[in-house]
């Protein structure tokens, strides 16, 4: 049961984007299209699960003082793997995400979970936590990507939703729009949580 809880934690209670407010750069910069959100999210999920696994396996061997350096090397290794694999097999998305793939190394979500979770809990729980957090992250940024793509382009995943006569709302696609859209979503999440808390 607790493994399931660890898995579900990342979706709402400790959703990395909306509740913990981590990994903001990747969240806002690449979400001009929904498909980028999925690409980025899955890349981060892979790194998160692998690094949580390795850190958890080695949690009793890693000396306390150099643990952050060890985490960074582990994470950087997996990011390099993702970078090379994506360049080889998903060239279009790799090009769209650009510099943000190497930047997964400094995505606070990953090092935060290594430090706060994987270095303290057993392997199974850590993998569940990594998977939950990663998918929570993926869903959050894909939703943001869908909203921005719909408003800015009239499409979702490249499928036309609004007809040709739709006047594109350019603000949604520029960086300023990313900040505002995420701010509004956060406010909405807070409101929903307020209501839920009030009832329960």
């Amino acid at each position, binding site marked *: 049961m607790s493994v399931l809880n660890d898995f579900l934690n990342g979706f709402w209670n400790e959703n990395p984007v909306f509740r913990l407010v981590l990994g903001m*750069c990747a969240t806002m910069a690449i979400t001009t299209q929904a498909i980028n959100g999925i690409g980025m999210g899955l890349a981060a999920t892979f790194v998160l699960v692998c690094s949580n696994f390795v850190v958890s396996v080695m949690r009793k061997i890693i000396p306390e003082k150099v643990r952050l350096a060890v985490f*960074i090397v582990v994470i950087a290794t997996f990011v390099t793997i993702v970078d090379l694999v994506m360049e080889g097999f998903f060239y279009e998305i790799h090009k769209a995400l650009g510099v943000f793939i*190497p*930047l997964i190394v*400094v995505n606070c979500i990953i090092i935060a979970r290594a430090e706060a979770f994987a270095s303290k809990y057993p392997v199974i729980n850590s993998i569940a936590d990594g998977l939950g957090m990663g998918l929570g992250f993926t869903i959050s940024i894909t939703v943001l990507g869908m909203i921005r793509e719909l408003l800015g382009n009239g499409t979702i995943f490249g499928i036309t939703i609004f007809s040709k006569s739709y006047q594109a709302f350019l603000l949604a696609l520029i960086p*300023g729009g990313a900040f505002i859209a995420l*701010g509004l979503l956060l406010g909405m999440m807070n409101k929903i949580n307020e209501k839920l808390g009030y009832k329960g």
Partner: protein
Amino acid sequence: MGKLIIIIMSTVLVNNFVLARIIGICPFLGVSKKTETAVGMGMAVIFVITLAASVTWTLFTYILAPLNITYMQTIVFILVIAVLVQFVEMVIMKTSPALYQALGIYLPLITTNCCVLAVSVITVQLSYTFIETVVFALGTSVGFTLALILFAGIRERLSLSEIPKSFEGTAIALITAGLLSLAFLGFSGLVK
């Protein structure tokens, strides 16, 4: 010379890392509650980014590229940055206690500032020369500092105003940053 001036204008105003490229948001949101801390963080960032970019550029050009192991760049760069930050912290602590007092607490935070890694990666990608790299790094970090201080000023005023409950904290900060980013869009005609 002309290219260097264009790089500076571009990195400080037009392609401002925080407001136009959305890199380095965590410290931007995290240490922007007071103007004083924003200034301290900004100074530390200018120092570290410029140093880190020159070191990583040198390593890439003279070690990684000749040995054909450029795929190691992410790992090498992040390690160099982490070591450099520690080293800078120790040097400042020994040589200038006053400066350490001012910058000390911000230095460890910089390792996870994506700006630093991003500058290293981007300068290598664009195959800049050494001088161009240093100017790019300087411009980027000054641009970061500018955005951070402006934003801190706005947030200080914001903390006194009434905000709907569900928008308190990060939500309103993000919307404010969005408006600031729109304002910076006005510079976009400056460099072609």
